[in-house]
């Protein structure tokens, strides 16, 4: 048993922290207010090797583990979760290409993601199907000779409007008796006729990150865009979720840590009743609780990521990390705002943004409830 990161991992943490602290603070408030992002930041991060870290050497990435990905995500999120998502989730779904794709697909789709020249995303959720993914029947692909014709719509798709290509979960075999064998993953280039993305505005948090609704109207893609076997879509989705749930948990840990750091600074400075807030026990207890929960969450993230890197996928451990960290981040951000009083309610204070940013970690990649269902199912079977 060794609780220390390796030297290389520590250096990655320092490098990620320095980049985030150097580049994000000046832009965070603007991106949040205007719901925009500056792609040069994504490009810069990619040139430094922070993007698509799981992409293997032969496809232009550094081929690092999930733990390294999580370390970078925590550091970026501690400075600004919205920018962290905009930068790091630019390769969301490439995990599926790398694991299930053909050699040709890997060579085509992976290198531009690692270099920051392209952005991708994964479209699962539909207007009528989120948590219950297998019930997604709105988006269908029908085979006509050597093309698939795709029709339907998708909802809440990260990078939907900025991506160059999106890997889409579509129904290809509606009559299969097994509802988990009815879907396939198909790569759709976003410049294809009949594809439209509509950037959604008015999100509560992570507003630097693009979220869009998609519509497909007779979008024709070659059958060679099918990623993995036909009917294997649900299994491929679960493969991705098992990895990225840990990443979202790391995002939550970073968000909570940002909230703790802001709080420590504030309570040492702010005077009330002739003493710094930090001298009051109820404040001290909040700080101590936040530290404990963040550390506990981080340990769950590290263990889940480390085990995956060792080759063991344990869905209940992954779900525990995701659900604990999501709830923990929301609670920490709430306590941080409370300790800031009225100032925390203002947009110019970072805690206000963290308070809004934290909530998404309880929703995407499986809601807190879905994670608990996964754990219970495993524990009670």
């Amino acid at each position: 048993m060794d609780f220390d990161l390796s030297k290389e991992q520590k250096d990655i943490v320092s490098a990620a922290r320095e980049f985030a602290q150097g580049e994000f603070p000046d832009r965070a408030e603007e991106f949040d207010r205007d719901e925009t992002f500056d792609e040069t930041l994504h490009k810069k991060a990619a040139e430094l090797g922070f993007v698509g870290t799981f992409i293997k050497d032969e496809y232009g990435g550094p081929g690092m583990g999930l733990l390294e990905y999580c370390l970078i995500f925590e550091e970026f999120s501690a400075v600004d979760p919205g920018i962290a998502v905009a930068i790091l989730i630019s390769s969301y779904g490439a995990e599926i290409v790398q694991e299930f794709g053909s050699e040709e697909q890997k060579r085509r789709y992976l290198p531009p993601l690692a270099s920051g020249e392209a952005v991708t995303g994964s479209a699962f959720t539909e207007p009528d199907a989120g948590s219950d993914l297998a019930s997604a029947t709105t988006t269908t692909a029908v085979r006509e000779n050597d093309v698939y014709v795709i029709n339907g719509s998708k909802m809440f798709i990260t990078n939907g409007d900025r991506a160059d290509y999106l890997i889409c979960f579509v129904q290809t075999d509606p009559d299969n008796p097994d509802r988990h064998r009815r879907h396939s993953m198909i790569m759709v280039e976003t410049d294809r006729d009949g594809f439209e993305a509509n950037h959604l505005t008015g999100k509560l948090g992570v507003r630097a990150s693009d979220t869009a609704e998609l519509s497909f109207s007779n979008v024709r893609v070659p059958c060679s865009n099918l990623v993995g076997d036909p009917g294997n879509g649900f299994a491929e989705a679960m493969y991705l979720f098992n990895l990225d749930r840990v990443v979202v948990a790391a995002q939550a840990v970073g968000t909570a840590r940002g909230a703790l750091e802001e709080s420590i600074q504030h309570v040492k400075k702010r005077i009330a009743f002739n003493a710094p807030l930090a001298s009051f026990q109820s404040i001290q207890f909040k700080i101590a609780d936040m530290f404990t929960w963040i550390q506990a969450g981080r340990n769950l993230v590290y263990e889940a990521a480390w085990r995956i890197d060792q080759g063991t996928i344990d869905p209940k451990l992954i779900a525990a990390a995701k659900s604990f960290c999501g709830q923990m981040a929301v609670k920490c951000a709430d306590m941080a705002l409370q300790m800031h009083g009225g100032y925390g309610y203002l947009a110019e204070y970072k805690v206000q943004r963290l308070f809004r940013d934290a909530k998404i970690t309880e929703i995407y990649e499986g809601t807190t409830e879905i994670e608990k269902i996964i754990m219970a199912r495993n524990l009670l079977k």
Partner: protein
Amino acid sequence: MDIVVCVKRVPLTEEVDLVIDAQKKGVKKDQLAFVLNDWDNYAIEEAILLKEKHGGTVTAITVGNEDDEEVLRRCLAMGADRAIRVEAGDMSRFDSFGIVKILSQVVKDLPYDLVFTGVLADDDSYGMVGMMMAEELNLNHSSMVTAIELEDGKVRTTSELEGGLGEVSVVDLPALITIQTGINEPRYVSILGIRKAAKKELKVMDLAELGVSDGELAPRAIIEEVYLPPETEGAQILTGDPDKIAGDLVEILTKKGVME
């Protein structure tokens, strides 16, 4: 062009309430985060820029314990070719003089055209190592340098003087230069750089290997006591609405002759 850069790992002390240690000889460092000294970050960047332009090698050196290797790995990741750490045990027994003796002993056996140090280190701010080392190695030097240009067998340096004056010097090589912050824009460490650094040489030497004895390293300056500045009387807190505060402030500053 072979360049040796002396670097130091220092505690981050911004926005930290420093606590004096029990012996009253320094501050408690166990809770502090450590980084590469800011001046040294500019120095290593400048060396790498020169190497990228003119070829040659960059060697980073530090005197310190294993934890201090972190800053050497950083230098390697930024683009230095190799690094040397001198393991000197308890560092608190050295003053700047001792550090200079050790560094000089390492540098004198290396091939070099230029030796860089930061102007000063963020932690104790003595600013002595660079200049004393130039003396120890009998090198031409230029200090507080904000621009460097290579010429045939020489360097043209720009230094920053008091009151915003600039001074340009031409110095014959080999030379020692102390680097001022702002001379360049230090790069970020990249993942690829970190990967490459792992394959570069990081040599560890000890004092016996260098042939310096503790006697030679005995401090010339001995710290008697370190203390926090006493709280002084005389602060005046202005109260009232912003207009009144501004008015009062201008009045005081005018009275004291700061404003006219």
